């Protein structure tokens, strides 16, 4: 436990600037995506192995709480992809390290440029689905 405390404290204290913060975010987003991936593949495998439970889970994933989590996941996925490209390119072409600070800033900018409209589109889909469901109920 004390080693865990030291690791977390030193992660916060280490002055690695943008590069280090992206490293921390890359790990957190990666763990988040893996957690979702396991849940998603488990759910999809039930489309063969247990259809009623699969249907229940799909209904659960359409609730507002899971829609919100889905938007967080979108941001994590886009960040992990864009930052991963930065890491891979700089590792495979070390000459690019001369511009590493520009690369970290570009990664953040490209993440926001892709993730922001993605989340807005998902928000519109979600609101429309709940509004049309409410309208159908009102007519009945």
């Amino acid at each position: 436990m004390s080693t865990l405390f030291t690791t977390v404290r030193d992660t916060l204290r280490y002055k690695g600037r943008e590069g280090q913060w992206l490293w921390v975010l890359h790990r957190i987003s990666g763990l988040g995506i893996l957690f979702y991936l396991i849940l998603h593949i488990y759910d999809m495998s039930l489309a063969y192995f247990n259809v009623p439970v699969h249907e229940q889970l799909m209904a659960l994933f359409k609730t507002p709480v899971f829609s919100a989590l889905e938007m967080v996941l979108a941001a994590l996925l886009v960040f992990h992809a864009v930052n991963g490209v930065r890491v891979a390119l700089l590792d495979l072409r070390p000459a690019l390290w001369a511009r590493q600070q520009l690369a970290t800033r570009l990664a953040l900018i490209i993440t926001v440029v892709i993730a922001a409209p993605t989340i807005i589109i998902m928000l519109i889909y979600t609101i429309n689905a709940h509004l049309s469901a409410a309208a159908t109920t009102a007519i009945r």
Partner: protein
Amino acid sequence: MTTAGSTTVHSVNRRTVRPVAPPRNGFERAAWVFMRYSGLVLVFLALSHWGFQHIFNSVQNLTLESTAGRWGVTGQIATLQIWFWRVYYGLLLGLAMLHGLNGLRQVVYDYMHFKPLYWGFMTVSTLLIVAVSAAGIAALFLGVNIAAVGGAAVR
């Protein structure tokens, strides 16, 4: 600059303060290379999958029927279209799970310093990931089990 195989693994230029020893060949080096190349492939596979299901479509519209449209239904002879989805989803699932498993291993190795805890956690995680992956691949090739909900009950 030192190169091993076709991959540049080490470089000391004027800006490098701390020269890093080139990694020896072995599992760790293979894992390092795998993370970079699988990551680059996953950018296309995972983001296109995300785009299909969450931007051009929505989770709100997903039904058993739409899944059956890509996987086929149990007992159906696979068309070329179904084989396309099998290859695409199979590749995405396999690469993502291996990439995720190795990423988890790297993070856990850094924070779980008590060896029995580390090995215990990684054994359970690996078994879980292998089991879920196997179930996912099996379901993908067996198709949506429409008969289980009486066929006609599918919306």
